[in-house]
Structures are given as C-alpha cells and as structure tokens.
C-alpha cells in the first residue's frame, strides 16, 4: 500500500534533516515551509523562471519540478549554503560589486546556476555565460549586470586558485 507520508533524510547545506512528507510536497515547498529556508524563491512553479534553482548532488535542478521524496538521500545546496563562515562566495561578491541584482528575487537561482556553470567551465566566454544562464529569468536589471558579475567572478576565482 502506498503511504500517505514518507520519511525522508535530506542533507541541505551540510545539515541532515529527517522529516515526514506527503509525496506531493514539492522540493521548493519542503525547503521553504518545512525547513524554513526561504532563500529559495518560488516564481512561476512550472519550470520557466528558474528562481527556485538549487544544486542537487552538485547539479542544478528546478526545485519546483521535483518532489521532496525524490531528494531522499540527496545533498542539496541552497542559497543559504553559499557563504561560508560569514564570508560571501566570490559569485555573491561579484553580483554585489557589478550591479548583478536589483530587487533580488531571481538572484538565488542565478547564483546557483552560475555556480554550476563555473564548475563546468571556469573560464567562460560572454556567450557561454548567456547560454549557461538561459534558464533563469530576471525582470528588472536586465541581464547585462548579471553576465558581467559572472565573468568578474570567474576571473576572481581563477586568480585565487
């Protein structure tokens, strides 16, 4: 018989959480409502806007298109997990310095997409950044500042290596 609730063990930003979830609980709602991690933003809830992007086992996923039960056993990184010991991630710094955000709603998704992009391709061209971030929408700054931020972070991160 199927169960009305399922036990899940999900590691988010290094902390392991055990919870009971309804199978229909979206991963985005699990993070926001059950774990109180409200940095993952929910825009469209149908996989268009990219605001809810998180990393699952190192790969970006749209958390509104997954059920929490499917992340059982997985490691998730949300925006709350990017800064370490009070120090911003180089991408976060670069967004700050290069006007990579205005209202900030889309920013968590952009940052996590950019994390994966730079992980796969540490030295991207502007074109590659634009293609790599094509799954995220911004409705206020436009994309210029965001693209510049990612390029700036890439050179900063390269210099630190």
């Amino acid at each position, binding site marked *: 018989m*199927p169960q009305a609730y399922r036990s899940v063990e999900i590691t988010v930003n290094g902390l392991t959480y055990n919870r009971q979830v309804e*199978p*229909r609980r979206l991963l985005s709602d699990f993070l926001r409502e059950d774990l109180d991690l409200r940095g993952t933003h929910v825009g469209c809830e*149908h996989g268009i806007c990219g605001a809810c992007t998180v990393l699952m086992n190192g790969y970006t*996923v*749209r958390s509104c*298109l997954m059920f929490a039960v499917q992340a059982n056993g997985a490691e998730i990184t949300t925006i709350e997990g990017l800064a370490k010991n009070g120090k911003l991630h180089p991408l976060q710094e670069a967004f700050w310095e290069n006007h990579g955000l205005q209202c900030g709603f889309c920013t968590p998704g952009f940052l996590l997409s950019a994390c*994966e992009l730079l992980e796969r391709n540490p030295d991207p061209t502007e074109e590659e950044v634009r293609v790599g971030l*094509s*799954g995220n929408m911004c409705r206020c700054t436009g994309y210029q500042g965001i693209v510049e931020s990612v390029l700036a972070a890439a050179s900063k991160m390269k210099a630190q290596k």
Partner: protein
Amino acid sequence: MKPPKFDYFDPTTVEEALDLLKEYGEDAKILAGGQSLVPLLNFRLARPQVLVDINRIKDLDYVRENNGTLAIGAMTRQRTLETSEIIRSKCGLLTDAAELIGHPQIRNRGTVGGSLVHADPTAELAAIAKALDAQMKIRSSEGERTVAAKDFFVTVMTTVLEPSEMLVEVEFPALAPSAGWAFEEFVLRHGDFAVVGVTTVVTLDAKQTCTELRLAAIGVDETPFRDPEIEGLLQGQKITDSLLDELAARVSEKVDPFTDLHATAEQRKHLAGVLAKKAIKKAEEAAILNLKKES
C-alpha cells in the same frame, strides 16, 4: 499551483514498475525526469491517481554500443547526451542537438525516454528519432516489443504506448564517419520550445555526391514530419543552391502546420523551407570536412 494528491510508488526495478502499471492501468502515470509532467501536475491539468516514479531504477540509465548501434536507456538524462563520449563519437547529432533542449537545469533532470514518450510536437529528440529510424524498445509485464520511430508517434502528446507499457530503451544507428549533420531551429529565446526546427543528416561519397539525405521537421505537424520523396531529391546529386531551393519549396508545400500565438501556419511553412536549406548546407559542409579527415 500545487500538485493534487496521488498515490506514490518508487520501484527500484523495471519488473516492479511494470507490475504497478499492470495493476493501475490508465490511473497510473510514469514519472521520469518530471520536466513536463510536474508542471502539468502543478497546474492540475493532470490528475493521475497513481504516480510510478522510475527515477530509482538504475538499470534504465545507460549508453551502450552494440554492433553499429547506440542503445540509450530510457532514464538516461538529457545532460548525458552532452557529456557521453560514446554518444559523441557514434551519433554526434544527439550531442550537438542536446543544447537545444530546454536549459541546463532541465537537461540535468529531463530524460531521453521521457521526452520521446511525452511526444511534444516540437521535441528535438522526437525529430532525431524519426530522422534516424530509431527503434523504441517497449516492455510490459506481458513481454517486449520494438516499434520503429515512424510508427511510435501517433499525434500531439500521444504515442503507441499502452497504459501497461513502458519505453525502456531507444536504439539509434551509428552515423557514418563521412556523414554531416545539423539541427536548425527558429526559436524566440534560446532554450524555448522551437517554433519550427529541422534536423538533417547528409552523407556524401568521395566525389561529394549526396548518397543519402535524412530530414525531419518539428513544429509543422502533430508529429515530426519526414518525407521520402523530399529526401530522394538529393540522391545521387551534387548539392547545389538551385536544388536546395527546389527542395525548400517542396518542404514548404508539403508540411501541414497549425497556427498558434507564436506563428501562423504560413510562417511555419516558410520557416520549414528556409531551415531545411540552411540545415542541409551546414550538414553538407560538415560532411565535406569529415570526408577530408577520413582521406
């Protein structure tokens, strides 16, 4: 904007999944990558009583080479199309077309089998399957059958799959080392659903005469469009601009598109011809380069 209630199963073997499909029949829906199904659930456009999540079936995620063909397990992520060396070397069209499928986040979850079964009329993988005569391996608890891509797609979002059946593997032919290919799309924004797309594989002989043309178009009919007469136009011919113009005119004439908010039927007809010519030219150039590499 939240999914309705459903009974959830996450089997770890194909056999368990098939038993569930047999038991629940039309009340069950398979959940693969979820990039199309979950939006439908969130909007409550789909309200299946039972979801059979096949993401924990590890045996369906593989890429194998068998005697000149490339077998891809149904749960292989679309991202694998971009990263797999076997796919790149045996059927590079899949590698090159992968970046046209949605966005990185979509391809990390979306699966090869899921896209084919969903049968969106603008799905790139459906066009490639049709153009290359891919073979679909289908299982149910009663047995197995193989269906050619040309018979697999029935209409918009409908395939020959019965409720008790599941697509388990797709077999693509390996492309000849001297072949060239292209996938050209007209799309409003990168990663969106294509308005019209054309994929083609051109094979040339040593004299650069076309020995085979394969061509499929999406966004112009309920299922991917392919026409043997059009493909025959270049057979045994040197590819010239005037021949391509003739071919493009035939494509525009023969496709039977629909009008929606993105484009009228007339625009789609025009685009199909333009993209066919563009794709063939690009594929021909690639084939010439490959010929040079070979010799």
